[in-house]
């Protein structure tokens, strides 16, 4: 306690202990059937999450378990997400796969769920590590951050000003990638590449649109934009393709082939990348079932078999990496449909 008798952050740090993952893993335990896994994406009706959750549904069917999806129709309705966690807890599902809108806000509810013997897997967007059993990372943050910078540098010939168009300022994964991009840019070979600004479009088409305009007005010499969010890259591409900057200002980032097909073909975008969201969902589902079956507990080093996807090992802090993202260009974009 402090002198005046109040509670400060320091006091809390002392008292905090991390909730340890309980129990012991039995890699050879039988895969249970008839489980129910509830998917709680950041936002229902979001095409990206729909594809991901469909992947989860398919996997669960294969495994003989059942799938359900609930969620809020807004991507920033944290209270709504919390109450859905509560609902799932109430309905006694066996596991929850959740993409968290907020790393902290879901914690109380998720811990409550774990206390009720429900396994919690986060995917796409993590919570604090102690609030879930495992996190399925779409790709290692390292891979995503660095490859995007590499692609952009290549397109602009390692020279010129670039900017980043991100989603919300609070988006955990976005911020992690941006940090890594900045780190990658420190490499001497990028000495002529200058990151002039990070703009935030809040994953809102119109806002991203105007942020793109602003970037170009503010930095007339801008050579390229990296937008590591599907909404952002789409809006930026739409703006560029209808403006005088088309083809002159490069654009790359994370986008879905269906969204970006047109812009790749009309020359607005040369290349962009993404992982397969369906695989992300599938891995989340399989991890959830593995947890419920007792094959893993979420400790570092445990391994499990994820059907046709092969074997995965749990990394530090219970993180499981999906693998490297795919790069899409005019040559291969037509081979994908999501």
């Amino acid at each position: 306690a402090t002198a005046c008798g109040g509670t400060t952050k320091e006091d809390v740090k002392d008292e905090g202990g991390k909730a340890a993952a309980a129990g012991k893993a039995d890699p050879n335990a039988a895969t249970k059937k008839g489980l129910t896994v509830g998917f709680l994406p950041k936002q229902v009706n979001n095409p990206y999450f729909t594809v991901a959750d469909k992947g989860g549904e398919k996997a669960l069917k294969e495994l003989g378990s059942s799938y359900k999806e609930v969620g809020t129709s807004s991507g920033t309705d944290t209270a709504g997400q919390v109450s859905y966690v509560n609902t799932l807890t109430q309905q006694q599902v066996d596991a929850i796969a959740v993409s968290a809108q907020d790393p902290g806000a879901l914690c109380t509810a998720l811990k409550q769920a774990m206390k009720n013997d429900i396994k919690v897997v986060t995917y796409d967007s993590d919570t604090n590590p102690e609030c879930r059993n495992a996190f399925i990372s779409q790709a290692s943050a390292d891979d995503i951050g660095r490859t995007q910078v590499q692609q952009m540098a290549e397109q602009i010939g390692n020279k010129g000003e670039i900017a980043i168009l991100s989603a919300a300022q609070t988006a955990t994964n976005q911020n992690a990638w941006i940090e890594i991009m900045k780190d990658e840019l420190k490499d001497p070979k990028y000495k002529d590449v200058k990151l002039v600004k990070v703009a935030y479009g809040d994953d809102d088409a119109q806002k991203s649109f105007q942020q793109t305009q602003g970037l170009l007005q503010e930095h007339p010499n801008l050579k390229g934009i990296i937008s590591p969010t599907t909404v952002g890259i789409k809006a930026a591409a739409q703006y560029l393709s209808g403006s005088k900057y088309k083809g002159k200002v490069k654009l790359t980032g994370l986008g879905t082939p269906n969204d970006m097909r047109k812009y790749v073909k009309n020359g607005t975008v040369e290349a962009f990348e993404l992982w397969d969201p369906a695989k992300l969902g599938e891995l989340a589902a399989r991890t959830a079932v593995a947890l419920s079956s007792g094959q893993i507990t979420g400790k570092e080093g445990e391994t499990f078999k994820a059907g046709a996807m092969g074997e995965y090992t749990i990394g530090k802090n219970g993180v499981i990496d999906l693998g490297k993202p795919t790069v899409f260009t005019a040559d291969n974009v037509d081979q994908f449909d999501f």
Partner: protein
Amino acid sequence: MTVTAPEKAPAADVPKAGATRLVDRIFKMRELAILLVFLVMIGITQAGNSEFLSEQGIKDLLLNATILVLVATGQSLVVITRNVDLSVGSTLGISAFAAGTYLQGGGNPVVAVLLAVLTGVGFGLLNGALVSLGQVPALVVTLGTLYIIRGIDSIWVGSRQITAADLPGGFVDFGSGGISAVPWLAMIALAVLVATAYYLKHFGSGRELYALGSNPEAARLAGIPVRKRILAAYTFCGALAGLAGALYLARFGNVDSGTGNGYELTVVSAVVVGGVVFTGGSGSVYGAALGALLLTSINSVLPALGVSSVWVLAINGILLILAIAVDRIVALRVANALKKRNARHG
């Protein structure tokens, strides 16, 4: 009555010309204040960033305002009748998707626009019917339909989305094209705006909208078909929201179930900033359009000045308050000056 007061000399030539012109001027003044705020803002931005008013910059400014101008025009008609339509955002979203689905199947762009407008008309009629026939508070009803239409939209659309790739190239090009700095879309909005303003000023039914907003009971007594007019205002508002939906599709080339979400607040702000009073009976569509232009420009100005986006929201809000406060203070000053000038005595 036994007393007949000595009659005053009939005041034949009331000094009307001077007073009239001054009154006229005040009414123009209301819009002038907003225009002033707008110009100052643009001026400052241009000084800070010479790219801002480049051809592309002007085009962007106009394009950004287009959709809001349309919806605000429709909304002000409803607000003038002392009602409100909160469902415009939802209507815009669902009309845009309706047009998009049709185009996706290889439809004709003109028919698609008509389809969007008709969708809007349908929901406008629904709102109008509920409000005028049921004689119930518009705020509640349209908040209700806001949710209903939004819900129907998201059930219908699900996670589908329509992207530029699904649309005919000509349609999308039309959305960003124009004659030098003036986009096609802005011309459409301007035409609608001017026509609406002309109608409101020069046609009996237009004036009656003001009358029934100003005093509904008196309107009834004056034999104005109140329900019919309210229904018409809502239908028009819906139609413009629908049209705006089609233009949204052309402009952004992208619609999903979230399109237009939360738009009602922006529209209401534009209308309010533009001096259309929520108690009905006063304001002009030009004011609302200027409000829309001001509001969307704020969003372009800050990024153009390189203001960190952390600051944007706060500055937006403060500018909004500043705009209405300046407008109000100017109006008060002028009214005061007029009162002193017109004072019958002293």
